[in-house]
């Protein structure tokens, strides 16, 4: 049966129905929705694990969990948040927004799109099953940290490590197919007149992120494959007794890992670059410098990986090279922050929830960037490494960076998706409670970190008690504030809010996606719009 959509031929209402609509979907919006809900679910699961960690760390001594179980908590918290929350949420946003922003009817390869999504429940089903079995007393879940360094994960890894390895393979296949799809969509589905340098910044950042993904996810697949054979088939890649090297694992892992952290921030940069101009009612300042800065960050991200390994032992030339290369990244990142601030300069600003999150992003991400700069100074990192200072650093860039970007994007686009305005009062409550609690949660970690408190340890010495108690209070507050978010999203999606959204939604909004009605039709653009 042909499904060619002809000109002037309205297929809008041909929505498949029932569970099949989701299981067999070829629709970018439905798949985007599934990605976003999956990510939301994982957010609460990963968050629960974090609260177990913070409950244990509320006061010194061992209260609730065994150290062995604590290790499983930190490991699965990290893995779930990175691979199950941030990455799927970004792919979900790309699914929803990229076709609409470039004037396409859908993604370029819709079936592969659905496959990318459905692999995730498989992968995380396996991973979470190992946690459930651990809770039921049947062996240990992965317990070696989200970075799964050899030999912790090879020689000393529990049996569940092999399931973990294949779960990472499935996630990798999913990410690679997802990014191939995004690249094909952007290269091939742009409306006539939509040249590359007219694309919205969000599309640009995802375009570059997709390249990062196809370049490094296969390397991660290679790393876990070597782990698998080291564990089960007698190879000695990461075993010095056979001529290999455990440090080699770290090089391969971080060759993936550092680009990965940029994979987790570039799309948020894109979201912020859409929101700030809208609410400042000005064009983005320095469009082309934004594009070039994103590209330079992506390039540099491939040559800085060993800043995670300063204390591992490297020739001095290596230590210096990776220190200077890492510092260079601050330049394009600074360009971006400068451009956001300049966009706001003399704009007629209003402060709806997306804008509040965007501004918080700019402030708090920048704090994370600065602590990054402290960490990349090799001799200083000898002190900071593996302390809570690092934990503070990456939670500022990931929670108040990546995750705040996602929340800003959800509030920004929710009216477009559902046709209903979200509840602004609740949105503001969500914002203010989150932004306060998140700082109570993570700011004290800087201090205990600088004072030497090691990360990933369930107990600590007494002088760290106050700051840890504070962080734990912040953690529970932050966790429960997210229920406001959940409630607000559900309320909006079910149309329980009073205000209907217009097509343009926001007074200052520009771009193809805002020319469509809200909610956007099932197939975004059935005929290509003309871009001037």
């Amino acid at each position, binding site marked *: 049966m042909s*499904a060619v959509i002809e000109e002037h031929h309205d297929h809008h209402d041909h929505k498949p129905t029932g569970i099949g609509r989701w299981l067999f979907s*070829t629709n970018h919006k439905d798949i985007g929705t599934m990605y976003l809900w999956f990510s939301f679910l994982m957010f609460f699961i990963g968050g629960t694990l974090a609260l177990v960690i913070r409950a244990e760390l509320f006061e010194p001594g061992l209260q609730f969990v065994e150290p062995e179980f604590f290790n499983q908590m930190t490991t699965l918290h990290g893995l779930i948040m990175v691979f199950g929350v941030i990455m799927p949420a970004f792919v979900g946003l790309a699914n929803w927004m990229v076709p609409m922003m470039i004037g396409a009817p859908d993604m370029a390869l819709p079936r592969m799109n659905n496959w990318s999504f459905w*692999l995730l429940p498989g992968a995380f089903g396996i991973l979470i099953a190992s946690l459930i079995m651990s809770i039921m007393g049947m062996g240990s879940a992965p317990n070696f940290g989200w970075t799964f360094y050899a030999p912790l994960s090879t020689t000393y890894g529990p049996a569940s490590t092999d399931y973990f390895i294949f779960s990472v*393979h499935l996630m990798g296949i999913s990410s*690679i197919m997802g990014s*191939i799809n995004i690249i*094909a*969509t952007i290269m091939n589905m742009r409306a006539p007149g939509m040249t590359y340098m007219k694309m919205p910044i969000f599309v640009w950042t995802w375009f570059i992120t997709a390249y990062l993904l196809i370049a490094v996810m296969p390397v991660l697949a290679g790393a876990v494959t070597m782990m698998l054979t080291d564990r089960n088939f007698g190879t000695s890649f990461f075993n010095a007794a056979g001529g*290999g090297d455990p440090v080699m694992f770290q*090089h391969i892992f971080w060759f993936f890992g550092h680009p990965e952290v940029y994979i987790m921030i570039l799309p948020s940069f894109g979201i912020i670059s859409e929101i700030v101009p809208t609410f400042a009612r000005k064009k983005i300042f320095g469009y082309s410098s934004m594009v070039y800065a994103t590209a330079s960050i992506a390039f540099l991200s491939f040559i800085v990986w060993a800043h995670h390994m300063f204390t591992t032992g490297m020739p001095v030339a290596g230590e210096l090279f990776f220190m200077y290369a890492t510092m260079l990244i601050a330049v394009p990142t600074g360009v971006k922050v400068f451009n956001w601030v300049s966009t706001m300069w003399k704009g007629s600003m209003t402060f709806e929830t997306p804008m509040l999150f965007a501004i918080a992003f700019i402030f708090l991400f920048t704090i994370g960037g600065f602590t990054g700069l402290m960490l990349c100074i090799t001799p200083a990192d000898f002190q900071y490494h593996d302390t809570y200072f690092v934990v503070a650093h990456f939670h500022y860039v990931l929670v108040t960076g990546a995750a705040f970007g996602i929340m800003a994007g959800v509030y920004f686009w929710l009216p477009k998706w559902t046709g209903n305005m979200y509840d602004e009062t609740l949105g503001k409550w969500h914002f203010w409670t989150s932004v306060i609690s998140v700082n109570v949660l993570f700011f004290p970690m800087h201090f205990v970190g600088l004072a030497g408190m090691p990360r990933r340890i369930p107990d600590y010495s007494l002088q760290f008690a106050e700051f840890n108690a504070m962080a734990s209070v912040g953690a529970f507050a932050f966790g429960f504030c997210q229920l406001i978010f959940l409630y607000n999203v559900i309320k909006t999606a079910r149309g329980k809010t009073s205000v209907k959204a217009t097509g343009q939604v926001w007074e200052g909004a520009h771009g193809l996606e805002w020319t469509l009605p809200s909610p956007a039709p099932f197939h975004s653009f059935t005929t290509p719009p003309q871009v001037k």
Partner: protein
Amino acid sequence: MSTSNHDEYYIPEPSKWPLVGTIALTTTVIGAVNTIHAGELSMILPVGLLLVAYLFFGWFSAVIDESMAGQYNAQVDRSFRIGMLWFIFSEVMFFAAFFGALFYARVFAMEWLGGASNNASTHEYLWPAFEAVWPVLTNPDNSLFVAPEEKMGAWGLPAWNTAVLLTSSVTVTIAHHALRAGHRKPLIIWLAATVALGVIFLILQVEEYAHAYSEMGLTLDSGIYGSTFFMLTGFHGFHVTMGTTMLLVMLIRSMKGHFTADKHFAFEAVAWYWHFVDVVWLGLFIFVYWL
């Protein structure tokens, strides 16, 4: 053929294949781990593999039917091409991880174990007998990893295999030219020759493995030389197997009269894949066998 076909968009119908794919892969990996852990075949694995076979067969059949029915316009064709090219790029990066491991092991790990740079005392106290020479024929700890007796030479079988694969790249190109010129018969002949060369390569490779295992003591668990050797050539051999299978499907389709002089994306995709496998082999020949 128009290069741009913008006033008509194509969206495929909903499809069960992605879901089948998920179930197939998840089942396969669970079966694989259970098999490894039990040390004997877990029945989940063959079930998973059968599902994977069903997936490939069913999904590709569906796509071929749609393509033959003329549903795909030029834009869809371009999306497929972009998809295939970047898929091959991701495969390149997969091999890059293992090449990276090989270079790291040779250039850094081995030298450091031998005491280079500031590692003199490591060498002295851990494994003073270890000599940093590639290939590693005495492992740091020979009681844990029994080292191979000799190096796999480059100029016997591997050189022949290089010739075989390079020739096959030429034959597949000739077949492609024939297809483009609309000559069915040479297409089939040269494609058949390519498949045959792929099979010959695989037979020679099996021969080489048998020799390595039975006569040279070169095994997967014989230390870093064996690890890198079998990981790289093994994954390459797996890709040749996939490539040969895909070429065989193309051959069958050509004999059935599929493809036209200007519409034959599947054929081209397989040809690209084959060239990629060939280039990887050149890397292997130089860095694994020769240098």
